[in-house]
């Protein structure tokens, strides 16, 4: 409830303009908590592409869709969840088929997975409108909602990743399980975005999941590249880094093609803040790949490659989120897809 009160009547000013001394609020919207009363403001009229004109086929250029309400924790989670999932997968492969020669990868993957699962949950809760109700995510099992499935996946992953820290057989079995669950964990976020009415995300529906998977592989490889490893382990990580970064760049090209089937839809990846982020991500990924490909890699090149790879993965996620927001603001993009 607002702190402001009407001095004449000492009634809280919550925009309802109802004297609460005269009656109790019982309407459907009465439960709405009003922190600040909306004030008259210069109307946000944002014809995103061009000035609205009489023959313009839109409603005064106003957005058709609502902009996503997600903030920085969501793209950060996309990165952290991807990192944790891909690390768990690599760790599981290392302990299953590494013939005991990749102990550090296998061990550290468990820590990255467990820490990543905790951080992921924290980030997702941070972005909720009502944080204390986070557990309601597990009230139902709803296959039509990728977010619901994802929460179940993350919960299973978190459980396995925590159990993987235990010693002995239980820990090993749990590490394998977390590696398996980690695979869909890296990629469902792409489906989550595609399953919206936002033109950019919807039109990128084939290439978004592989984009996040490739990026997760590159993120995990980058994280391991920053650690001290044996020569054989270093080779494993390098292969993963090169393959991941190459897949990222190729898939980005495919995504640009996919969203540009309808010209207006691809615009957020070319213009504005999201376009800048997208180009930054590309530059990071290319330079990171070059650093990984250097034949006899000096230490600085390895670190530079890892930092750039991480920056590229993060920038990609932020570019996709902000591109989606810009896309939702453009009514012409939404109309063009449907015509």
């Amino acid at each position, binding site marked *: 409830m607002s702190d402001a009160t009407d001095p004449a009547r000492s009634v809280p000013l919550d925009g309802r303009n109802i004297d609460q001394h005269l009656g109790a609020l019982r309407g459907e919207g009465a439960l709405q908590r009003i922190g600040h009363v909306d004030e008259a403001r210069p109307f946000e009229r944002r014809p995103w592409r061009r000035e609205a004109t009489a023959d313009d086929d839109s409603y005064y250029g106003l957005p058709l869709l609502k902009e996503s309400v997600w903030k920085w924790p969501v793209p950060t989670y996309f990165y952290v969840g991807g990192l944790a999932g891909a690390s768990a997968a690599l760790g599981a492969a290392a302990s299953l088929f590494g013939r005991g020669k990749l102990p550090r990868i296998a061990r550290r993957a468990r820590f990255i997975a467990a820490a990543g699962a905790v951080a992921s949950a924290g980030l997702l809760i941070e972005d909720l409108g009502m944080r204390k109700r986070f557990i309601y995510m597990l009230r139902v099992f709803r296959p039509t909602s990728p977010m619901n499935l994802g929460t179940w996946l993350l919960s299973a992953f978190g459980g396995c990743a925590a159990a993987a820290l235990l010693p002995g057989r239980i820990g090993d079995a749990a590490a394998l399980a977390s590696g398996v669950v980690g695979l869909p964990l890296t*990629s469902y976020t792409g489906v989550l975005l595609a399953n919206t*009415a936002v033109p950019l995300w919807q039109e990128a529906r084939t290439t978004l999941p592989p984009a996040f998977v490739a990026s997760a592989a590159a993120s995990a490889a980058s994280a391991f590249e920053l650690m001290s490893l044996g020569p054989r382990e270093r080779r494993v990580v390098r292969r993963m880094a090169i393959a991941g970064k190459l897949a990222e760049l190729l898939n980005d090209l495919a995504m640009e093609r996919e969203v540009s089937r309808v010209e207006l839809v691809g615009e957020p990846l070319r213009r504005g803040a999201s376009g800048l982020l997208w180009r930054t991500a590309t530059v990071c990924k290319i330079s990171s790949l070059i650093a990984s490909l250097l034949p006899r890699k000096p230490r600085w090149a390895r670190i530079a490659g890892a930092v750039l790879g991480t920056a590229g993965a993060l920038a990609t996620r932020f570019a996709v989120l902000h591109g989606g927001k810009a896309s939702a603001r453009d009514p012409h993009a939404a109309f063009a897809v449907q015509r």
Partner: protein
Amino acid sequence: MKGFFTDTTLCIGCKACEVACKQWNQLPDDGFNFTGLSYDNTGHLGSSTWRHVSFVERPVPLGGTLSSFSWLMMSDVCKHCARAGCLEACPTGAIVRTEFGSVYVQPDICNGCGYCVSACPFGVVDRRGDDGRAWKCTLCYDRLKADLTPACAKHCPTGSIQYGDLVELRVKARSRVEELHAQGMGEAYLYGADPESQPGTGGLNAFFLLCDRPEKYNLPPDPVVPTKKVRRSWLSMGAAAVGLAALTLAAVVTP
């Protein structure tokens, strides 16, 4: 199955529906803006605005009229889609289908994840920042349970907003279109009246009679519930996950 039939040719833009909705549901005002967009100072549906009257000014004559200018007015509302994007996306089960066929957000369940906001192809549902939850038209669920007409339909002075049984409303709407056509308004048509004309949403439980392209009223021309298009994305996700498994194995196995 209950719903709305909004006949825009009868709308006079009085905004009684907006007021009745705010009043009955005890929603806060939205700041008394002056937008400069014709008589529309509301702009869009939102978390605290569940009815919105749009005003379309066109330098085109309408139907049999002699004037070279025409005004289209439409009272916009949540469409209560037969297949609702918000409902299918909701991860908590807060959004449900009621016994009246309407789509309802349970405020005691919603945790404000914001997924429905992006999943609605009509841009209806929104999250209120200071409240933290998603809100939209409830089709006056409380009134329906008491066998009353929703506040907006009750207050509409011209019968532009009609509430009733969907089957009856559709019959009424079709005969209204025929009537208008006979009067020389050939541009009149129904928007979202049944699953055949709008397969993407399975038809709307709150449908409209329009006289221009949907875009003019800020309605999507061919809305499709996102889950209908996302099959390819799941397949692609599966392939990518298998690819990642193969990559980790190959990286580890290669000497």
